[in-house]
């Protein structure tokens, strides 16, 4: 019972973080039609910056209870880099996707060294902040409260994005642009503002994801390239461009990884790629994606 709970709890926690990054990837793909390899770099940047932010907060005497809001805030602040990167990507919107992919690959390489420059090559850890939040007891099982808070935060963000996309005017315009770019532009959508804000939102989702995970895991320079493949798996399983797909995909990947690690560690990533390939064979567009031509 406890073992199963640990797998589910760990898996859902991982899924919550993965969902944030994958949601950013989906937003950007949906509107700009660019698959952003640098999403993992944003995630790692969020993680490193989160460590620094909490350390500043400690130095400034902020009470520990507020560390979670500090982390989220630090992720949002990092969104400031979004418009600049979008301005760079703007140069290749009309080009072949090989160039778009390569441009984001160039960003992956550059971010790797930006992180190394500011935070050094050694993995960084954020003391034992997570345990400050204590643990929760639920019948026979017990888990860290921090992880539960992150899961809740992720659910709130997911609901927030859902409401934003469905209920607000900007959300409707965004979906219209994703659906039919030419028509939306012809009807007067300001493409520049739209693209810049979507990309910034995508960036923030990535950086917040990284910031939230850092109290439970070390931030390292391998983080960006490792996370990219996992979030790719998520969006491929769920279907490129679909938010619901990101959610379901993240749950599948998160739970499968947790299960594989505890039962047969060799299978960890292998299992995930196998699911990806199986999904692509039988449902080429992913579980919630639109049919590909």
């Amino acid at each position: 019972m406890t073992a199963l709970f640990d797998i589910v709890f760990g898996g859902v926690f991982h899924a919550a973080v993965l969902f944030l990054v994958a949601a950013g990837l989906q937003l950007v793909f949906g509107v700009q039609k660019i698959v952003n390899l640098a999403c993992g770099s944003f995630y790692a940047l969020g993680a490193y910056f989160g460590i620094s932010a909490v350390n500043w907060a400690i130095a400034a005497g902020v009470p520990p209870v507020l560390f979670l809001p500090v982390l989220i805030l630090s992720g949002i602040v990092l969104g400031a880099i979004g418009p600049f990167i979008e301005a760079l990507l703007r140069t290749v919107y009309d080009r072949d996707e090989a160039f778009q992919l390569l441009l984001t690959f160039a960003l992956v390489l550059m971010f790797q060294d930006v992180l190394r420059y500011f935070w050094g090559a050694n993995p960084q850890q954020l003391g034992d902040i997570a345990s400050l939040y204590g643990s929760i007891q639920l019948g026979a099982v017990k888990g860290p409260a921090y992880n539960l808070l992150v899961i809740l935060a992720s659910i709130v963000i997911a609901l927030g994005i859902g409401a934003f996309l469905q209920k607000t005017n900007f959300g409707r315009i965004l979906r219209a642009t994703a659906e039919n770019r030419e028509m939306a532009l012809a009807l007067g959508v300001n493409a520049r503002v739209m693209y810049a804000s979507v990309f910034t939102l995508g960036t923030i989702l990535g950086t917040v994801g990284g910031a939230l995970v850092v109290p439970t895991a070390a931030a390292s320079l391998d983080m960006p390239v490792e996370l990219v493949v996992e979030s790719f798996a998520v969006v491929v399983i769920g279907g490129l461009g679909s938010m619901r797909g990101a959610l379901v995909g993240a749950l599948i990947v998160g739970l499968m990884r947790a299960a594989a690690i505890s039962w047969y560690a060799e299978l960890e990533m292998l299992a995930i790629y196998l699911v990806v390939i199986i999904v692509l064979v039988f449902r080429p567009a992913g579980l919630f994606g639109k049919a590909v031509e």
Partner: protein
Amino acid sequence: MKTAVGVFVLAALATLFALPSVLSAYYITLVLPAVAYAIALLGFNLLFGYTGLLSFGHALYVAVGAYGAAVLSSKLGIKSFELVLLLSGAAAVAAAIPVALLSVRYEKIFFGILTLAFGMLFHSFLFKFYDITGGDTGIRVLRPSLFGNEFKDLDKTAFLVGPFYYYCVGLLAILGFVMWRIVHSPFGLHLVASRENRRKSEYLGVRVRFFRLIAFSISAFYCAVGGAILAINTGQADPELAYWTHSGELVFMAVLGGFANFFGPLVGAFTFIFLKSELMGLTQFWRFWLGLTLIVIVVLFPRGLVGVGQDLWTRLHKR
């Protein structure tokens, strides 16, 4: 134009053959991987440049070639490099066919993501199944014999910069010639036609998926040959060879040189290897500058170095 290309190729080959008498052994050990990547990119570009399919997982076949050389030499005791090349090339083709069967159903970004997933599948196999693959340390690669000659009197460096180097340059020349014939054959033209307009070429009777499958297999073979040379040069086959960033480097080289031109990726391979090693000598932040170079190329010179050269050439001739 044709004679110009011929002269250029002969001059380039003559330079490569003359290099060991000019450059120190250190630089020759740098040219060797460049030759290996040049061979791999010949294959990669058949798929990317000519067929229009961007694979983000071709490092898989480089790794198959490297691990092929490792397993054959240190576990099965096969010395002959010719046999190693043939067998690891065949292994790469065998690995490529199931991947290609699935991937050629797609184009564009889906093709890229699917090949990436397969590449990472192989990477995690290499990484996790320690007993078979040696895990993160990989497998040692032993020195092969060339045409039955083991060169026992030479030490490792002397072997690499001597006979092995000439052998690989010869291999590059032969494989380059074969690829030149492939892309200019009716088969190559079918590939280009299906890249330009898939539906129309299907209507005209091009068996698009089948031809793409063949192109994929040929490119895998070339990548495996490159991988085997790389592994012998470093004496080690490790899982990093199959990682997706390594696939990214292959794409980088193709675009750096200019993938629209037959020789572009070759220029890209040599430029990339030297740029990388020079940057690594200058600063520990070489990735940053490499990334910046890539951005400049992608944004300002999408036709790559060869494209820049061609523009300069036509401008000079107009005057």
